[in-house]
């Protein structure tokens, strides 16, 4: 009897938690596929289908938003990777004065609101001609992407024994050869994870794109916001765009997890 009670109780908790986790996701999916959903039939759509995926309004905007979202995310992850690979090598393997300050500064974007950075950069961008430009958006997306990528990259560098670099240098390899021939092949899992972090960060960045890119440069998150009442209300259209963001994001992060070492999960420079 006690065993049955335990199974029932545990099952109830798991069902409750599953509902808590999945119901918001299911609600969004239902909105994306609901062709007809009248208020008096609120518990389930009367007709499911792909109407909203073929919606002319979305068809007009999706290609542009897709182009901006995905090309910006790819460029952001590549440039972020280049910067963090070289910086990560120094921060993870060298002891120098000011390293702790660098540590604190590298984590700065975690600790202050993006809107603050947005309104600080707005007049600066306006003066130097970066406002509402492709490269302006790329630069500002990198602010949020770098700390995450740097953590993953530093973790990878830390997992390599320093004796390997010493041995290579003793055999006459220059620093660049050591980076290219020793570190690059050994740190690639962390680099892939870092690149994925940067990619997903950029793909989902909203407020900085809204402030510094919109209306010339608009990405999928900005479009979603428009359909949620910024211009007019269309939960179905927003849900379709949400799916286009959610699926690649969750898939990418699950892949990134496979490449992460415990060191890179631990993050931090200190």
């Amino acid at each position: 009897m006690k065993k049955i009670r335990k199974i029932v109780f545990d099952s109830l908790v798991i069902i409750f938690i599953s509902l808590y986790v999945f119901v918001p996701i299911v609600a969004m999916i239902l909105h994306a596929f609901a062709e007809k959903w009248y208020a008096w039939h609120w518990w389930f759509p009367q007709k499911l289908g792909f109407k909203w995926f073929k919606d002319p309004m979305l068809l007009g905007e999706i290609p542009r938003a897709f182009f901006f979202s995905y090309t910006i995310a790819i460029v952001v992850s590549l440039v972020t990777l280049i910067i963090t690979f070289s910086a990560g090598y120094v921060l993870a393997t060298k002891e120098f004065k000011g390293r702790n300050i660098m540590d604190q500064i590298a984590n700065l974007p975690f600790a202050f609101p993006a809107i603050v950075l947005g309104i600080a950069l707005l007049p600066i961008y306006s003066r130097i001609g970066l406002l509402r430009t492709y490269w302006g958006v790329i630069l500002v997306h990198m602010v949020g992407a770098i700390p995450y990528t740097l953590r993953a990259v530093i973790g990878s560098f830390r997992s390599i024994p320093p004796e390997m670099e010493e041995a290579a240098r003793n055999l006459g390899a220059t620093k660049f050869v050591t980076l290219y021939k020793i570190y690059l092949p050994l740190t690639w899992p962390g680099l892939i994870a870092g690149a994925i972090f940067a990619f997903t960060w950029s793909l989902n960045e909203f407020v900085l794109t809204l402030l510094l890119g919109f209306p010339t440069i608009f990405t999928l998150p900005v479009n979603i916001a428009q359909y949620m009442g910024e211009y007019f209300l269309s939960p179905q259209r927003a849900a379709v765009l949400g799916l286009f963001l959610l699926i690649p994001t969750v898939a990418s992060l699950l892949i990134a997890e496979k490449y992460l070492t415990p060191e890179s999960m631990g993050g931090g420079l200190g």
Partner: protein
Amino acid sequence: MKKRTGIQKDLIIDQLLIAPFTFFYVGMIIIPLILIFLSSFGLVHLTTGIPKGFSLEGYRRFFFTPRYPYLYAFAFTFLVTLVATILATFIGYILALFLKIRKPKWKNFFISMMRLPLFVPYLIASFMWWTLLYPKGYLSMILKHFFGLAIPLTNDPLGIGIILCAAWMKFSIAFNIMHSQLEMLPPDLEAAARNLGANTWNVIKRIYFPLTIYGVLSAAAAIFLSVFIAFSIAFVHGTSWPRFLSMLVYRDAVERGEWLMGYTISVIYIVVAFLVSYLYMKILASREVR
């Protein structure tokens, strides 16, 4: 001319390697933050509406405008964030305890499921919750049809939408931290307590909770900070009054062109966020010492 030694050369190469990162951070973060700080005192004029010369006008308006709208928004943001933090930490802790004590069969599935909200972007999570909470959403309809309640659950003055959405997004952080902490506790402690006649509640109260209190605090501080500075959640679930602080900055600076107030609120916002970060680091340090 002196020839450089190998060590000096290495140092120069290291500096060159880290230079792009340093220049990027200085140009994109440090300088803009300094400019915001100076602008809030009228010392830099990047935009219109900034007083000429040193002035505390922005701070005077923040603290002493009649009916205290800015202080009210600050208090609202702080309270809503606090409630969301308590809720998320409580849910995460209870679930971690459930896993530790009950050891259910589907443990691995349970842990994977718990991590899902961590992968969902802010704006998408906010939208998902909006589809549940808006007047035609499931939760609003259930309340209306089964309990006869027609209360606004999103874009409401109590911040219900912000709290529910933030708690869903962040309880995974608390769960992950608490779960790993509880797993690290030596099983002998519980066995000894059980042998002495302690029931489950006593084991939680006298063993688990005291030994994981720093984990609870660090999880709470991390959750508080991430909700406090969030924009998307407030953008989707916030209301016109009282406003969440991030939305107030957006309204004043971008919609109204009141840059002085935008910058002043930003400075106060940053100071509070940094204080919370400092507290978080302190708690983490204490946890490591223990």
